[in-house]
């Protein structure tokens, strides 16, 4: 296992970046999630729409100066392994950004607020269609559990293979658990893909 690589001097191994996408509706707690476990105060990078869009220009002429902002954090997992967490821009009209976000990603955590369940539908749709490994984390941000997970699964119509968990985006152990769930899920998927 990877302990062997970690004992090597940092200078000998080229650092490897990995990333996980944190998705969900606007205001669901994505940046709170990132901030709870990131070793840096979440940063924001801004991207002009034209630099990342593929086919949106035809639909939105004159939008070339629009800027979208992504919040992100970092977790150093060893001398040569750095995990970045990128929050999706909160609104559906920025969905085109996600192609860039999910490129090469381990997968995605879809944060769900059960009082606004439909807000996460675009994220679930997107990750299903693009075959990105994802889990659904029902945010208990307000200390209330409105729905049983079974009901949430039914409402979202996600298959049983997709892990569905509770998560308090403010609490590091909880967000850590969500990330572990996702990576384990991605491992299962990768294992299945390679036979």
């Amino acid at each position: 296992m990877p302990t062997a690589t970690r004992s090597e001097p940092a200078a000998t191994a080229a650092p490897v970046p990995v990333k996980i996408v944190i998705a969900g509706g606007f205001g669901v707690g994505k940046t709170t999630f990132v901030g709870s476990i990131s070793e840096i105060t979440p940063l924001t990078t801004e991207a002009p729409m034209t630099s990342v869009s593929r086919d949106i220009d035809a639909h939105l002429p004159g939008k070339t100066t629009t800027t979208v902002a992504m919040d992100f954090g970092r977790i150093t997992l060893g001398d040569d392994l750095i995990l970045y967490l990128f929050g999706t821009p909160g609104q559906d009209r920025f969905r085109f950004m996600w192609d860039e976000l999910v490129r090469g990603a381990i997968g995605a955590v879809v944060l769900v607020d059960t009082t606004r369940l439909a807000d996460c539908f675009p994220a679930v749709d997107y990750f299903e269609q693009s075959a990105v490994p994802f889990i659904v984390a029902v945010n208990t941000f307000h200390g209330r559990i409105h729905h049983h997970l079974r009901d949430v699964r039914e409402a979202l119509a996600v298959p049983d293979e997709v892990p569905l968990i509770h998560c308090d985006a403010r609490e590091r152990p909880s967000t850590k658990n969500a990330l572990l769930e996702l990576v384990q899920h991605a491992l299962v998927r990768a294992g299945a893909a390679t036979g």
Partner: protein
Amino acid sequence: MTVEGNGAANGAATPVPGAAPPPDLARVDPGRPQGSRPSEERYDDTVDDGLGDRIRPYALTGGRTRSAVDLPLESLVERTPAGTAALEAQTLERRRILELCRGPLSIAEVSAHLGVHLGVARVLVGDMKVEGLLEVHRPRQSTGDRPDIKLLERVLDGLQAL
């Protein structure tokens, strides 16, 4: 943001991987609350902080919008010995990038700390990579655009050890 600002004055301000950015770097983004847990409200995705009003995003790149190098968001940028040697001879933004990238830093972080659009950071870093001042470590993907099992296992191990 402080495109015109604190680059030359903070030669010692180089972030160490694993540590919080020094205050002068963190201050680059005036919209970010420091010392407190950020709230979703403060990070409203739709807020336009007016950066575009102050300076055209690609003025720093002479209008060029394409990077010479493919730089996914999480690509790590690190200064080479040649970059260190050439530090003093650089323009403000390029010097600042070299200062930031003493240890590996993602292109997203370079963009955020510099206070410029991602695309601008990509053009600047791409140039400096071509010139040999910076080294770029791209994400490793196996087939199908996803990290392979070995890498996933290392991530799992690392997370469990947190």
